[in-house]
């Protein structure tokens, strides 16, 4: 059945329709001509993997981003939003996945931020704001004093505040981008009750969630995005979980296969490691994992599963509350980052702009940053030796650049990622940790990055990489470890199916 046809003969009043929406960021095409409809008083759920374009689409509908092409009609009339305020005036509001609260302000002030109620004299009507906030909290069955500073609330409660703010606007269309990621099961139940109330009042909801099972409970229309294209559309009664998973992951783009290798000795042993967050709650709990030289291990998990915390703790950036990290038989738990790098353990961080690159330096200086000692003779660095290190790195990880002196900003996202990888490879590591190495790079560069990992592993390096895209588990990894709530939930060989991995992560419970 054709998708377009299915979309056409669907019943129900359409409030908002987006046609052929495309959005590009530089050379990256996040959306490639998506059609999307929102029905009055119904929940439309968007399904898709990371980078499928869900959040980008929602940001366009709520006025955060402007589309590169395509048009939006609201109640049959074409419309353009220049910013979120304009979208809000048309009754469209969004609950962002990243909380957008001012932590220093109270719940009341956050709920009414930017549209403060005023008395006749023009001063802020705090009493009325507090009363309305109180009512919202009661509706959401949350016992939060409107005057509490947001920073004193736990994450789930902050999310409730975010939801309360969106509710207070009395929108006609409410977009919820992962509203439940930090909520407890009881809070999710309350939220769903609120959503049903809103539906009854004629409010349209657009819902995005990674918890497929949970989302299906309230879905009326399901839309699946993949790589910036809408791949499937159906009404709730026509579909099941299996249908969603099948349409989400689609056909495999070949990201390589596990290199044939003889594994050596255990290179890195993570032994009952626990990692706390700022408030002392363990994000990683008593986790043990080993990687042999030449082996590639993939860690899969949802947001908040503790992947990043685990890798950062092993690399020495975060402190452990328990357990130890053993490299080549030596306990390195007490060593600093520099010493761990010297001994052959490196981390390629998740956010390359924030943690990977020095933007003020050239490509070459970034590449040589972790191995300055290798080209220092007595007191001084040798430009000649440094250039050898740089040229070798550019060659080793195949960076497309005009040369080592090019500014780092002149490279594409994929090549910047290769610079971060090349920088750490230049230290000749024994074990490489990569946190979401494929984030924000296009599919071709992804394949190249995984090929690099396979090459390194064949050379005897132990590799651990994390990912939140299930398709990437089934590429070069010899072993797939699924993390869930700080623990290892399951371990698979390379012949596992995507559905099995997703089931183990808690994404799709069957």
């Amino acid at each position, binding site marked *: 059945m054709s998708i377009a046809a299915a979309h056409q003969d669907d019943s129900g009043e359409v409030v908002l329709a987006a046609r052929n929406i495309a959005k590009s960021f*530089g050379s990256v095409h996040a959306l490639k001509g998506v059609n999307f409809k929102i029905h009055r008083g119904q929940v439309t759920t968007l399904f898709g993997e990371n980078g499928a374009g869900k*959040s980008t689409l929602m940001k366009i509908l709520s006025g955060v981003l402007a589309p590169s092409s395509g048009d939006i009609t609201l109640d049959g009339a074409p419309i353009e939003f220049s910013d979120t305020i304009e979208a809000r005036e048309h009754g469209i509001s969004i609950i962002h996945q*990243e909380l957008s609260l001012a932590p220093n302000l109270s719940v009341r002030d956050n709920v009414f931020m930017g549209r403060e109620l005023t008395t006749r004299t023009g001063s802020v009507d705090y009493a009325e704001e507090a009363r309305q906030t109180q009512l919202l909290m009661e509706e959401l069955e949350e016992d939060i004093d409107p005057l509490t500073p947001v920073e004193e609330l736990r994450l789930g409660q902050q999310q409730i505040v975010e939801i309360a703010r969106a509710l207070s606007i009395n929108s006609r269309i409410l977009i919820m981008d992962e509203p439940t*990621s930090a909520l407890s099961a009881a809070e999710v139940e309350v939220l769903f009750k609120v959503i049903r109330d809103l539906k009854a009042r004629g409010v349209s909801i657009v819902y995005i969630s990674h918890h497929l099972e949970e989302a299906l409970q309230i879905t009326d229309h399901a839309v699946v995005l993949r790589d910036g294209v809408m791949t499937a559309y159906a009404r709730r009664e026509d579909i099941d979980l299996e249908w969603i998973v099948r349409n989400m992951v689609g056909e495999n783009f070949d990201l390589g296969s596990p290199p044939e290798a003889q594994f050596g000795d255990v290179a890195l042993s993570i032994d009952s490691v626990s990692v706390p967050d700022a408030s002392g709650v363990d994000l990683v709990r008593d986790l043990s994992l080993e990687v042999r030289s030449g082996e590639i291990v993939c860690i899969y998990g949802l947001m908040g599963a503790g992947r990043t915390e685990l890798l950062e703790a092993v690399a020495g950036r975060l402190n452990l509350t328990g357990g130890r990290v053993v490299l080549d038989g030596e306990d390195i738990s007490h060593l600093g980052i520099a010493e761990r790098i010297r001994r052959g353990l490196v981390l390629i961080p998740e956010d390359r702009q924030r*943690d*990977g690159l*020095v933007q*003020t330096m*050239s490509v070459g200086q970034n590449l040589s940053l972790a191995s300055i000692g290798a080209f220092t003779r007595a007191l001084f660095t040798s430009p000649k030796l440094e250039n050898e290190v740089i040229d070798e790195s550019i060659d080793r990880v195949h960076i497309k650049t005009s040369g080592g002196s090019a500014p780092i*900003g002149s490279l594409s996202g994929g090549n910047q990622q290769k610079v971060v990888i090349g920088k750490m490879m230049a230290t000749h590591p024994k074990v490489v940790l990569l946190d979401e190495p494929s984030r924000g790079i296009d599919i071709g560069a992804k394949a190249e990055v995984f090929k690099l990992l396979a090459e390194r592993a064949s050379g005897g390096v132990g590799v651990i990489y994390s990912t939140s895209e299930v398709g990437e588990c089934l590429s070069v990894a010899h072993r797939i470890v699924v993390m869930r709530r700080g623990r290892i939930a399951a371990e698979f060989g390379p012949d596992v199916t995507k559905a099995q991995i997703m089931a183990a992560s808690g994404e799709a419970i069957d």
Partner: protein
Amino acid sequence: MSKSQTMTDSEGKEHKTPMFGGDFDIVRLLLEGRAFFALIAIIIVFSALSPFYFSLNNFLIMSSHVAIFGLLAIGMLLVILTGGIDLSVGSILALAGVCAGAMMQGLTAEAAGVILYPPVWVVVLLTCLVGAAIGALNGVLIAIFRVPAFVATLGTLYVARGIALLMTNGLTYNNLSGDPALGNTGFDWLGFNRLFGVPIGVIVLAVVAILAALLLTRTPFGRWVYATGGNARAADLSGVPVKFTTVMVYTLSGICAAIAGLVLSSQLTSAGPTAGTTYELTAIAAVVVGGAALSGGRGTIGGTLLGAFVIGFLADGLVIIGVSTYWQTVFTGAVIVAAVLLNSVQYSGRRRRSAGSGTPPSPKPSKPS
């Protein structure tokens, strides 16, 4: 120094900003070399206005004034390159001068009942140690205890000035020339003498500048400084000892301020506790005029020296043509604002360029969706 200069140049060539794209190389050249062209312009204008300005002797005298700010600015550059700020250098300068003065007047050792007159080289060494100690205190507060640099150095600004006032009771040490009988003559050599016709202060500035340029461009430490200021988190994960680097730049800034204090009190042959008030601001101005970014990671010794000369030659020129000191203040301020304005034009051009071609704002949200 030469390397850092060529680095900037090659960077400039790589960056064809859309704003000054392709054919407008001359505009970019003017922008990149603005401190240099400003200096030339200042020399031409004042030479036209006053017959006394354009002479070797006047340049040397002005340079010995510049030496004080230049020394402070070199230390300040190191700090600013790491993304910090050091407001305490003016006070350290005064405290260093007062310490040197106290030692030249003789240290009373109560227990032994004698007065010690340390030789000048010991005085110089101990004074530098005082500067290093206060700088290190700044660094430890900032790197280890995470006090914001602005606040930590504002605190030491007051403390160092206060100690200098306490030591002298608010008075000034005069007559620092020493006594041949005591074997501690030669302190005024720093400020008054000339080597091959060049004032010693200028030579000191040149030596410190060359050492600092070597440190920045040719040693691992220099690379650490640039990386720390460019992106401390990335530097940390690459094994750069970020905390050590931070403590060291403040320590070096303290030493530079102490050297400046020695040169100044030697030029004046007196050491007062109120010397160097607001000099820290002049030093920051020199660094900024020299093209460094206050956000860290960008800047060169050559640029900073040019910045110091621009400010120094402008101020002295205004004095020579008889402009009132009030107007001098206005002009200096205008030059600083113009420099910062050009800095933001230059760097925002770069950012736009890198935003356009290099790193698109990630199409993916920063958390998995």
